[in-house]
């Protein structure tokens, strides 16, 4: 194991925050090196995250070290978090909801700023939305799509930094009343469509 190599990997992770796994093929085979990198990051309150099927590695702030001051510096306030959830529902959830593995092309789904503005028009001014979209791009939750202005694809953090399974479970519970309402509506439509016996 090369300690210098661990230092170099940590330096790159700290400066770039998200790197492609291909940049460090040795991490796949050298468990000791990987452990060393993890340990060094842990010492400064960070964690190396990876996810099966996602070709990126990222460094995140450990939850237990996120104090109020740290959270302020991260810049993810309530609106930013809400926008992360809404974009996640459009760009990531359709691929993972049924338990399928991540797609080969992580940028397959895109969403335009106009589409988001239309969905959020009641609560978000366009300038506010633009500002928060830029913030999510900087935090690598979103990416600009080349050649298509004002169009966004899921960034590496939207795939890596979210516990998809638990979030889907939580969202399913939240959406139960809507499912029940849908069933009632479908039942009402069905009753309207089916003639009663005495009408025949």
């Amino acid at each position, binding site marked *: 194991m090369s300690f210098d190599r661990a230092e170099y990997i940590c*330096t*790159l992770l*700290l*400066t*770039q*925050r*998200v790197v492609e796994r291909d940049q460090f093929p040795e991490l796949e085979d050298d468990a000791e090196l990987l452990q060393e990198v993890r340990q060094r990051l842990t010492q400064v309150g*960070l*964690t190396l*995250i990876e996810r099966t099927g996602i070709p990126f590695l*990222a*460094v*995140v*702030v450990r*939850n237990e070290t*996120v104090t109020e001051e740290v959270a302020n*510096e*991260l*810049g*993810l306030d*309530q*609106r930013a*978090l*809400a926008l*992360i*959830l*809404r974009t*996640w*529902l459009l760009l990531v*959830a*359709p691929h993972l*909801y049924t338990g399928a593995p991540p797609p080969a092309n992580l940028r397959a789904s895109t969403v335009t700023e106009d589409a988001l503005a239309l*969905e959020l028009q009641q*609560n978000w001014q366009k300038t506010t939305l633009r500002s928060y979209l830029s913030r999510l791009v*900087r*935090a*690598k939750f979103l990416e600009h799509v080349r050649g298509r202005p004002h169009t966004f694809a899921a960034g590496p*953090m939207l795939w890596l*930094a*979210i*516990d998809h399974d*638990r*979030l889907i479970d*939580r*969202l*399913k*519970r*939240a*959406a*139960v*009343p*809507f*499912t*029940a309402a*849908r*069933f009632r509506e479908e039942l009402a439509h069905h009753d309207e469509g089916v003639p009663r016996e005495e009408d025949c």
Partner: protein
Amino acid sequence: MSEFEESGQAYLVPEDIRGFERLFPLLRGLVAGTDESYSFERLRLLLLLARWPGAPPTIREMCRHLHLPLERLSSHVQRLRATHWLTNEERSYQLSTHGRLLIFVLQMIAQPWQDGDSVAVITQLYAAASSQELGLGPELYFEEVVTAIEESLRRLRRAVNAERTPLVGQFHEESSRNLRMADMALTLRQQGVADHDFAAVARMHQALSALTALSGQLEQLHLSLLERDLLTSGQVTLGDIQTWASQTADFVCASVIAPHVQSTIPQPWFLSEGKLVAAEQDIAGRQGTLTYQKTPPAQRFRTLPAQDVPDPHHYRLYALQGQLRQLLHDAQEDLPLSTWVSHPEWCEALLHMIAALDPLLRRGNEPVFLQLNSSGHLVTLEEGAAQQVSEGALSLKESSHVF
């Protein structure tokens, strides 16, 4: 006389529908032989009279509300009077007892009844009994409503341990409906409250309170069972979640995702990403090996725009220059160059200043080499030969070039 009435004596009414034969002339007054719209117009007329507040309306007022020609309305009124749906008082149009009962029955039929809905039936009857149209008086039936509510409460209490979702849903619906009915009955009762039934009103208050709690309990149970069923059967779709998100406030969305999302460190905004390492190395390298072998480009001292943040190297230089100015200001006499040079940290700042200020260094294009020797003399090295320039002394006589 009609054919039926003519043959009435001969027609044998079966035992089980005896009394119903009186309905035929009544109903014939409502239904018109040829035009179906006539029947609806007569019903509308009866409903208008049933809901008419205050003194009975005139025929012109009825015309305005029903949008019917006067002749046609007169014809309907005559027909309804003849068949006893309206009273026979001259120029006054009011429902007869039959008319009030008919409207009551029609309103009863129009309710969304469900099997076994005894509380609703009794309450509607009580409401009818309380109404002036039916004229039965408010005292009737309240006791029955309270008893029916209490009975339903006993029955519904047994449902709180039920496990079947549809059954609990049905019980919850029934409890909500009975709650509305009990509330309605109590309101009606309180409008015409009498001394002797305070006990019944108190019982109703208790039943209402218990029913409210039970209804909430059943709702919770129903929701939890529904959630269990829907989650285990996988029927919650992504569309349902997206509908939820579209109708949910941002702070709720944020609270849902917050425990499941991790954040990376913020990007240093004044350095482009990926060049931070190179910048660090560059700065670190400069600190140890800064010597001038040729004229550096003239430094422009100016106020920096707010968005330009100098790097650490320049911060250090500025700090040293500041110290030098302060030292010169505080010194009683000129400061010998040797004193300045003896301070190791200030050498670098001095070199920068000399490079910027000494006019010798800006002569022609020939390379000029500059060094400070250890005794504080300023020398130039030209083609390998050292040449002393001056002993050097720093004073506060600052030129326009000076910071």
